[in-house]
């Protein structure tokens, strides 16, 4: 009897699955040229049961499609506060960065017909506080945190910055905030939330308690599941199954008339290899950056209608040293290694399509460096491959060469042990190539992998590795660029606008540079200089950046290997009008640029 019941249940399940897949097919073909197919590059693996909540790590909320932000911050080379309009149609930033006044879209409506008001935005800011965003942080003394949020009228809000520790990218932090419907989410925040927030920003035991309560609220926000998707974006979530998520056009969207696709389908994928398959088959209308080897890239380009738009990506990858481990505490060893590694070769093998070899170690992406430090850049040591120079540096460091192999100063064997997370094929490939280059030059080397990226970062921060790969030059804000080299991971923390240095091995300092380093014969404190960037204007920042670039170039806490290229894959068979402008090819963290292009009316249907 039980067996019979099980069979019946299984059959029922099979029928249900068959029905659901059948209806999906129907809706896909029904859309005709109006169906836009893409993937969420930020999140492998669709989860059919995840809520439409932008803060949920698996949430079925696709930023730019069915999730809106106040505005869409651009990828400008130097100005972090530039953005494309989102829920805010326009905004005004006070000249001293002390406040931002937002004017909302006059016709903005939620998909259930209710208008989007300043109260919705205020509540969304409250939600952002529970997650600790850059502008909305309850951490005492955090840089660039907001002080007051005032609703001026139903279409206008004013947000002021706490000028005790201001940041030039305060406006960016405000604009890059998700907007949620207050009539759906209001239950998540308690009625006295804003009083609590005020208490949390004070000092003493009460403030501690209030902060803890807000952090607890953060957990509630992460798991909150709206009964159905209520979106202010161009699309609204229709349904999700493990294979795909289907979104339909939101007729109430303020710019609905210019939104080309009638439906959007997000395909499920688990790894890059699956995305390559979709792209070579010409299935995707758009996909964000995906690393691909040259052969695969050629196949993708050969797909009908396929186009690869190359743009600027403010990210570089470097080989970082743990200076608590010998011999990496010696700058001559680091320089010697820089002379041994042929970065052109590394990039050619590891990331020929997704990267450009670093011209030198400056701490800045080469494209941004042209804008920030055009005069200093040519003066920096390029570290072109040069075995003689490398040997001279090694000798300066006291290393000895015996039977063609370099030994440590104390005569012990030296093996450069490089670490990378297992799934990062381009990093692994690069390390394998570096290993080969080093072994040929008499430096023993090995490549060691860690199961996944979070564990890798944890072990790296705990100082377990000698050498590891490290993302750097994360623009556009100057502080963000240099804090990767002279920030918390190297001992300098910014607490309430004051820079403090922790010794190597303490408080997440795994790089272990000394507090003062010598640059052109003079001692400087690079962490303090980096801290200054947090409140400097563009013109003030330039000389500091030049100084820091010189410091990074001479001190080499890392060897900059290649600067990433932003490859956007699009297909012109069904839609056209793709932007080629660097600044909007890549938007804020987690934003799917194609959704923003669609909502702004750039993307046109071909039929």
């Amino acid at each position: 009897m039980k067996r019979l019941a099980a069979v019946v249940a299984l059959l029922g399940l099979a029928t249900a699955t068959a029905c659901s897949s059948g209806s999906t097919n129907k809706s896909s073909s029904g859309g005709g040229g109006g169906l836009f197919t893409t993937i969420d590059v930020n999140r492998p693996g669709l989860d059919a049961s995840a809520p439409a909540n932008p803060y949920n790590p698996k949430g079925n909320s696709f930023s730019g499609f069915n999730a809106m932000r106040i505005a869409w911050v651009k990828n400008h080379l130097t100005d972090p506060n530039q953005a494309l309009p989102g829920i805010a149609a326009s905004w005004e930033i006070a000249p001293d960065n002390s406040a931002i006044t937002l004017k909302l879209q006059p016709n903005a409506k939620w998909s259930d017909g209710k208008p989007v008001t300043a109260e919705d935005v205020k509540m969304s800011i409250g939600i952002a506080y529970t997650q600790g965003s850059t502008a909305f942080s309850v951490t005492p003394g955090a840089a660039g945190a907001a002080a007051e949020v005032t609703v001026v009228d139903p279409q206008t809000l004013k947000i002021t910055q706490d000028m005790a520790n201001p940041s030039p990218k305060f406006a960016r932090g405000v604009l890059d905030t998700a907007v949620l419907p207050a009539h759906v989410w209001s239950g998540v925040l308690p009625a006295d939330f804003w009083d609590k927030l005020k208490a949390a920003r004070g000092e003493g035991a009460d403030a501690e308690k209030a902060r803890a309560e807000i952090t607890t609220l953060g957990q509630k926000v992460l798991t909150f599941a709206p009964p159905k998707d209520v979106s202010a974006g161009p699309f609204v979530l229709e349904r999700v199954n493990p294979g795909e998520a289907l979104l339909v056009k939101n007729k109430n969207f303020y710019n609905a008339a210019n939104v080309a696709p009638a439906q959007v389908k997000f395909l499920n994928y688990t790894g890059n290899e699956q995305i390559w398959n979709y792209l070579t088959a010409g299935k995707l209308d758009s996909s964000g950056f995906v690393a691909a080897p040259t052969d695969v890239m050629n196949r993708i380009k050969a797909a009908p209608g396929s186009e690869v738009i190359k743009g600027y990506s403010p990210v570089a990858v470097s080989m970082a040293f743990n200076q608590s481990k010998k011999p990496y505490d010696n700058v001559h060893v680091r320089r010697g290694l820089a002379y041994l590694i042929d970065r052109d070769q590394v990039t050619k093998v590891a990331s020929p399509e997704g990267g450009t070899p670093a011209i030198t170690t400056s701490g800045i992406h080469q494209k941004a460096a042209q804008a920030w430090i055009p005069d200093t850049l040519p003066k920096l040591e390029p570290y072109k491959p040069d075995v003689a120079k490398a040997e001279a540096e090694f000798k300066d460091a006291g290393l000895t060469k015996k039977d063609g192999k370099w030994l440590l100063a104390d005569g012990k064997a030296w093996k450069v042990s490089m670490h990378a997370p297992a799934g990062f094929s381009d990093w692994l490939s690069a390390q394998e190539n570096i290993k080969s280059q080093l072994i040929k030059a008499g430096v023993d080397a090995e490549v060691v992998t860690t199961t996944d990226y979070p564990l890798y970062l944890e072990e790296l921060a705990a100082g377990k590795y000698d050498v590891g790969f490290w993302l750097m030059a994360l623009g556009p804000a100057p502080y963000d660029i240099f804090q990767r080299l002279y920030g918390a991971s190297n001992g300098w923390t910014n607490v309430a606008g004051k820079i403090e240095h922790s010794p190597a091995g303490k408080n997440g300092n795994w790089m272990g540079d000394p507090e003062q380093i010598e640059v052109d014969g003079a001692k400087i404190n690079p962490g303090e200089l980096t801290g200054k960037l947090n409140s400097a204007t563009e013109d003030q920042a330039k000389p500091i950046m030049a100084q820091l670039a010189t410091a990074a170039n001479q001190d080499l806490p890392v060897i900059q290997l290649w600067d990433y290229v932003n490859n956007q894959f699009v297909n012109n068979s069904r839609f056209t009008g793709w932007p080629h402008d660097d600044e909007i090819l890549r938007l804020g963290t987690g934003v799917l640029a194609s959704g923003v292009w669609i909502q702004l009316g750039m993307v046109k249907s071909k039929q």
Partner: protein
Amino acid sequence: MSDTLIPETGMSTSATMRRNFWLGVWRVMKRKPSRMAGVVIIVGFAFMGVFGPMFFPDHLPDNPNAITQPPSWAHWFGTDPQGRDVVALVITGSRYVLLSAAVTALITVVFGTSLGLFSGFKRGRWDTVLMRITDMKLTIPGLPLLLVLATVWKFGSPIQMGLVLGLLGWGGVARAVRAQTLSLRERGFIEAARGLGLSTKHIISKELLPSMAPYIAMNMLIAVTGAVYAQVGLFFLGVLPYESDNWGVMLNLAVFQAGAMITTNALGYLLAPLLAILLLTLGIVLVVDAMDEIFNPRLREE
């Protein structure tokens, strides 16, 4: 007189038996050429594992100008994404795979057989306790456990890998050997041995074990394939530390780094370790087939 004669006759009988046995083996082998092929394959793999890496330098030469090349005369299975010869990678990588497989097989068989024999022969309380332990062991799913273990243990050496796989794999053998022992111990020849007052040691080592030898040997060979699949699978999934010439890592990189499913250039890189595994399995299957006939008189056609 007779006292001196009997041992002589005994020795010559056993020598004759041994000769007859090897003659039988040869006859069985000759009957199907595929069996000879199996032996050649296994000997070849053993040779590759032991001596293969000696033919190559410690650090295989790479070539950044010839990455992921299709098969050619210079590189029979093409090159990997570092421009290294794929055949060289398969050969240098064979030592880890085969050594750990051998260790696994050894542990599975020694552990499983001794436990099964002891349990089946002693019966009673010992049997119950040991078999419940075996049952419990059998309920532990191997692969998920290995995935968890891999996060804490790095399996740097093939011996470690083999040890863990072996300790995970003896359950089936123990159960089967126990069943065989239970059936054999009731047979006439064991009863006769007991009646003659022969020691337990003699009965187990001279009477029981030889009758089960083919069975154990087959299990051992099958354990080799199981171990190869398990560790190649683990490396393929990327949960174990990366070693560029490991077969599983090669498969992983072929698919996820070189794009072997998309471009034909990386096909050789994907096929080489696969073919090696296939060939090894084939060799084992053919030898097992021969063994079956050698030890099972009923299958002999003569």
